[in-house]
Every structure is written in C-alpha cells, then in structure tokens.
C-alpha cells in the first residue's frame, strides 16, 4: 500500500527534474571577470557600492543593436551618481563588437564573453538580456528581450536602486 511518505518521495523525485534559474531576483549575482574591449580585465565583484546593469548583447541580434544607444544614454546620465553599465558582448568574433561599439560611440565598458561562459552562468534564455544589480551585489530586476520604450522602465528602476 502507498502511504504519505512514499507520495512525498515521489513528488520530490518528480520535482528534481525541474531546472533552477541561475540568476534569480534577490540572489547574489554570479561573479565574473572578463576582458574589456580596450584591455584590462574587469571583475563584477569589485563593483560593490555601485548599482550595476549588466546587458548581454551581440552584433547579430537586431533588438540588441536598437537598445545599445539607449543604454549608452543611461550610463552617461547616472555614472556620476554611482551607476555602472556593463555591456557583455557574446559574438564569436570580438572584432565585430569592436567595430559596432566604435561606430555607435559606446561610452560604457564593453566586456568580451565569446566563450559564452558568463551568459551561460546567468542563463536568462533571451537576447538581449539585462540584469540590474544593487549596491550589495544582489540581483534585483531581470529583463528578457527588448521592447521599444522599456528604457523608461530601466531608468525608473535605476533611480530607485540609486536612492537606497
């Protein structure tokens, strides 16, 4: 006969199949160190005390390219108040990222993740993907994809996090 203990064991076994989101709100943001376009490495963990927005983009992704100038504007407006925007590029060939960053005049740090290790660690299942991290290194907001006008929401969330 099957009693309650067996049913609980069965339920737990079934649930074990479900995947865990790697970057979840209120969890610590997975740390990483990546090379920047113009040389030195940059580590996320060393940015504690600042509000960080990590944006994963690629030159072959249409919505990513549309979003980049909006992110550059956001970075310029709030960098003085303790905000940092990191653009993590995942192109196989970093020179494509360099060309586009140059043409668009991107002012924020562009990090190169051609091995896709960091984007895999964050595992947001969308391109572009944006993560907002507070001053304590905790993930507070996740944005999957880009829709026209969402930069207003980004600005709202950044201001709220800067006030904390």
């Amino acid at each position: 006969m099957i009693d309650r203990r067996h049913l609980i064991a069965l339920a737990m076994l079934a649930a074990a199949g479900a995947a865990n989101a790697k970057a979840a709100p209120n969890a610590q943001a997975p740390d990483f160190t990546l090379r920047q376009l113009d040389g030195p490495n940059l580590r996320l963990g060393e940015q504690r005390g600042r509000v960080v927005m990590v944006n994963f983009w690629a030159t072959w992704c249409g919505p990513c390219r549309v979003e980049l100038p909006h992110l550059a504007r956001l970075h310029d407006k709030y960098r003085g108040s303790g905000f940092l925007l990191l653009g993590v590029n995942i192109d196989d060939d970093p020179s494509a990222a360099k060309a586009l960053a140059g043409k668009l005049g991107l002012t924020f740090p562009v990090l190169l993740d051609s091995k896709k290790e960091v984007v895999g660690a964050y595992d947001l299942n969308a391109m572009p993907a944006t993560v907002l991290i507070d001053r304590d290194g905790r993930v507070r907001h996740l944005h999957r994809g880009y829709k026209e006008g969402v930069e207003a929401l980004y600005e709202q969330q950044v201001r709220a996090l800067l006030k904390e």
Partner: protein
Amino acid sequence: MAASKVIGRLLQSLSALLGGAFAMQGAKAAPLPPDHAEAMYHRYSGGGLTSDGPALLVRKNLLDKVSLTGQVYVDAVSNASVDVVTTASPYKERRTEYGLGLEYAVRDANITLGLASSKEPDYRADSFSVDVAQETFGGMTTVNLGFTRGADKVGQKTIGFFDQAKHWQYRIGVTQILTSRWMASANLEAIADSGYLGNPYRAARVFGAAVPENVPRTRSSRALNLRVIGDLGSRDAVRGSYRYFWDNWDVKSHTFEGGYSRYVGESFLLDGFLRHYRQGKASFYSDDAQVQNTYVTRNRQLGTYDGNTLGGKVTYSWKKVPGQYEIKFNGALEVLRYRYSDYTDLRSGSTYSLSASVLQLYVTANY
C-alpha cells in the same frame, strides 16, 4: 469548402498546442525585418522567348510597430517560342506586377498581410494573402500558417476578357532549429483553382488535327517541401530540399535542390546550386491524342519531362557597418535545360528540349 473546414480544425488544434507551449516558455515574436531596398534587372532567354525588365522593392519600418513593403515587377516578353511559332505568330507584350505588404507583431505572432496585382493585355490577376508566423519552444520552433485568395480575369487579344478564374492557397509549415548550426523545415501547401484554367491561344492535337484545348474547370493540388540547412564552420553553409507535388489532374512531380554558399575574403560571397525537376503528365495531356476525350491539352507544362538547373551567384559587399547599413552588388546566372518525353517539336519531328538562361543583376541595401 472542405479545405477551409480542415484549416479551421487545424487552427483550433494548433492554438491549443501553442497555448500549452507558451505556458512552458516565455514566447516572444521575432522582431520585424530590417529596412531594406532592392533594385534588379532580370532577363530570361531561351527557347525562342526573351523576357526582361526591372524590379524594385522597398521596405520600411514605421514607428517600430509595422513594416511596410512595396514592390513593382516588370516583364517585357518577346515570344517566339515553339508553341507560339508552330500554332500562332510571335508577339511582344508587357506584364507589370505590383505588390504591397504589411507586417506587424501581435503579442507572440508576426502577421503579414499582402496584396498583389498583375496586369498584362490579356490577363489580370489580383490576390490577397495572410501569413502568420509564431515562435514557440523558446524560439526553436516557428510555426507558419498562410492563406492566399486570388481572382483572375482571363482574356484573349481578339475578343477581350471573356472568363475568370479563382484560386485558394492554404499553407502550413514548421521550422525547427536542430542544433546551433542546423535547421530543418517542412511545408505543406494545398491549392484549389476554379474557372478557366486553360490557355485561349493554345491548340491541342487529336488524330493529327489541331483542335482548341479543353481543360477541366477545377484543379486541386498539394505540395510537400522538406528542407535542411546547416553552417559548416568555415564561413560557409550547405542546404538541401525535396518537394513532392501531386494533384487531381494526375500530375506528380519531384523537385530536388542542393546549394552551397561561402564567404570569400572580407567582401565577397559565392553561392551555387543544382536543381533537378521531374514530372509525370496530366491524365488528359497528349502530344497527339488517339482517343476522343472530354478533356485534352497539348500544353507541355503538363507533360512528362525533366529539367535541370545550375545556378551561381556572386555578391560584393560594398559598404558595411554591422547593424547600421549594408549595400551589396549581386550578379546571378542560372542555366536551365528541360527535356520533354512526350512533346514533339513540330518543326523537327523529334521530342522537344529547351535550353534557357536567367540573368539577375541587382543591388540590395539594408539601412
């Protein structure tokens, strides 16, 4: 129509399936296509017929919500082909086709509405189409549904427009990402026609004498197309497809196509393909009918034949800024050869074969 009932049921079960898929993964529609323009000169030459002309296409995003496409296509035909020469006299005429398209995203689907109108002195064809593309399963599977309704006016030079024809096309397809380098797709299209489906200038042959052709006033056909495409890792890609066609006029055909593309250097792209087509004749087709039947045609398009095409294309990227704009110059050439098993060239007495070439010179721009 029975077909619309089938499509209705298909749509119902599909939305049930898609509803389930959306619950699993956050689905989003593919973005609208980029702003784009093309200008082309095309020329077909073969079998006594030359047809050339310009074509133009412009696509523009409006307010990032809607993508509008407009196109014009002109065919100036100079026809002295075997059918025309042996049963009539050579002629020149011009066909102009206009097309308008509207694409927009509604939640998770991309919807495309299209209008097309083709005009020539003795034929007028207008059509309206709707196509829906839905991404599911994390964007790995795209389902396509489409419908086109066409209405034609059929004319003859000496008597003007005398009849009409109507067409219904139903399309369903699925594209699946197999790996980060390979994709496959399956497409099914059912077409139904009703009205005057023949050719007022074409003659059939019964017991050696020329008689006007008589073609059924309805036709119902299906085509199934299977395709695969893959990236080979050295800036090149290979593709293959097979299509099987069958209809209620007893025509059955197979189409095999294989192609290869390769980037060469910084600015060049080379592309080549091979295509083989083979067809079995319609039940009422005959080169010289020896039996009196209700329907008879000598239209070689409906006979038994095979065709081979070899094509090549060179593309030169003139200006390119990734994601901003891109201007390319293209030149493509196709060489075709059709060999007919049951169509006699009345000038020589042996079975007919046709060699032709297609030249396409065009500029494309993404901006």
